[in-house]
């Protein structure tokens, strides 16, 4: 049992992934059923816009939790769930945009263009989704090989910026009560600080190590051991 948790086998991973996939679909399923039953409140389009936006941001943050969780628990296989979580963030982001373009604005492209250019909160949300697109497109083994691990990693580090844009988007759209966006901001800040702290530890460790490692002018190359 313990062993299985430490290093699940191929089929076990497949099952875990399938279960996680179903779990990630639940929020969407709930919205779809709610729409059908007219159970999304007086303003169902607003309910869907908000729920899809919430889940985009939540999945982004959940994705950012994978590395710290793996490091703290030592369960390296958690890393194998990260791609799916990131892609779900993108999928909910696309659903969020579709809700806005279709249900909310009903393809009023003038109004949409106007919103993107003139409403800072929409500009920022749009930028976040645009920046997520290359990450989604390169979330496959072929792209990693094609780009090379280091370049791929550099590209995917933009996820931190994207998450910040997501929080700013939320912060700017609330009228007065910033408690919820503040919660997300705290969660994100915590995740970023944790990484900065580990990076600093790694830097110190490399510096205190005697020469064998060629000193790259004191610069840090890897944040965490890749485990490969």
């Amino acid at each position, binding site marked *: 049992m313990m062993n299985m948790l430490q290093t699940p086998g191929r089929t076990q991973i497949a099952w875990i992934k399938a279960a996680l996939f179903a779990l990630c679909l639940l929020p969407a399923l709930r919205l779809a059923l709610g729409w059908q039953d*007219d159970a999304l*409140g*007086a*303003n169902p*389009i*607003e309910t869907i816009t908000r729920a899809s936006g919430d889940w985009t941001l939540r999945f982004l943050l959940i994705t950012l939790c994978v590395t710290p969780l793996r490091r703290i628990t030592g369960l390296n296989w958690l890393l194998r769930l990260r791609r799916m979580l990131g892609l779900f963030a993108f999928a909910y982001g696309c659903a969020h945009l579709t809700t806005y373009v279709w*249900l*909310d*604005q*009903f393809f*009023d492209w003038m*109004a949409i263009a*106007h*919103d993107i250019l*003139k*409403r*800072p*909160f929409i500009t920022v949300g749009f930028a976040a989704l645009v920046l997520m697109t290359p990450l989604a497109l390169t979330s496959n083994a072929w792209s990693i090989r094609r780009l090379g691990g280091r370049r791929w990693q550099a590209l995917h580090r933009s996820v931190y910026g994207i998450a910040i844009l997501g929080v700013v988007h939320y912060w*700017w*759209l609330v*009228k*007065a*009560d910033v*408690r919820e966006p503040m919660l997300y901001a705290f969660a994100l800040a915590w995740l970023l600080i944790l990484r900065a702290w580990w990076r600093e530890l790694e830097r110190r460790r490399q510096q205190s190590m005697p020469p064998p490692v060629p000193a790259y002018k004191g610069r840090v190359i890897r944040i965490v051991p890749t485990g490969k």
Partner: protein
Amino acid sequence: MLIQRPSDILASEITSRALFENRRRFLRDAGLLLAAGALGSAGHRAEAATPAATRLGPLASSPLSTGEEKTSYKAVTTYNNYYEFGTDKSDPAENAGRLVTRPWTVRVEGLAARPRTFDIDELLRLAPLEERIYRLRCVEGWSMVIPWVGFPLASLLKQVEPLGSAKYVEFVTLYDPKVMSRLPVLDWPYTEGLRLDEAMHPLTLLAMGLYGEVLPNQNGAPVRLVVPWKYGFKSAKSIVTIRLTDKQPATAWNKAAKHEYGFYSNVNPQVDHPRWSQATERRIGEFRKRPTLMFNGYAEQVASLYQGMDLRANF
């Protein structure tokens, strides 16, 4: 043509029509309805957070009412902005039950010859109650059509005889931290204001009911303002003091974000809110957005109040 013919529908009929708007709910409540016998309004009460409401009447109909389809009682009473009871639209219906609306008095004071305090029961008898079916446009881009019950605010203000020096009217609403939010989301108590001529305008309503019944707490019981050509937040809820002043009163949302919410806040599709467009709105219950009308469709009655004013600067 913006002024509609007087609606010849009785208040009691309106209530039962609201029931039919949602067949599913109607069927579920059918048993309740039978139990309620002749009181045809009991069915929808099962949905409201407030205890059994009291019918108001008899109600005169008004030529100022719109003939547009009314928003369902359920939507009107479950989708509310009343930040003292929480910032989600569903919070007020859940939390406003704690509000004690009786005894209740409204103090009318300031630059008036005969300032005095009115008891809520006295207010209800102060002038003939009318049903006014008005459009309500929220600054957030949604709208409703609501059958209010009340009388023109002017009827109340005349009782205290405003002095010639009175230029504005300030509305102070209840803030009771025992039952309301203690978070400093806005600078409590919520205050609003109108110019005296706006306050005296025949469209400006002091409302004590909706759908022929006493106001549910989440809608601003026991007495609120309704100014149909301005964004909804101008229509202060649960009013305790009305003050005649010579200076433009500070208003809650203006204090919170003065570039976003001006003193006038007239519905104006040409002047966008900095964070969203005001050109269109979603009528609750409808799918597609519809164009927003100047002064929320009341231009014929109120445009003259603002003649010569730059409505972009005085947003």
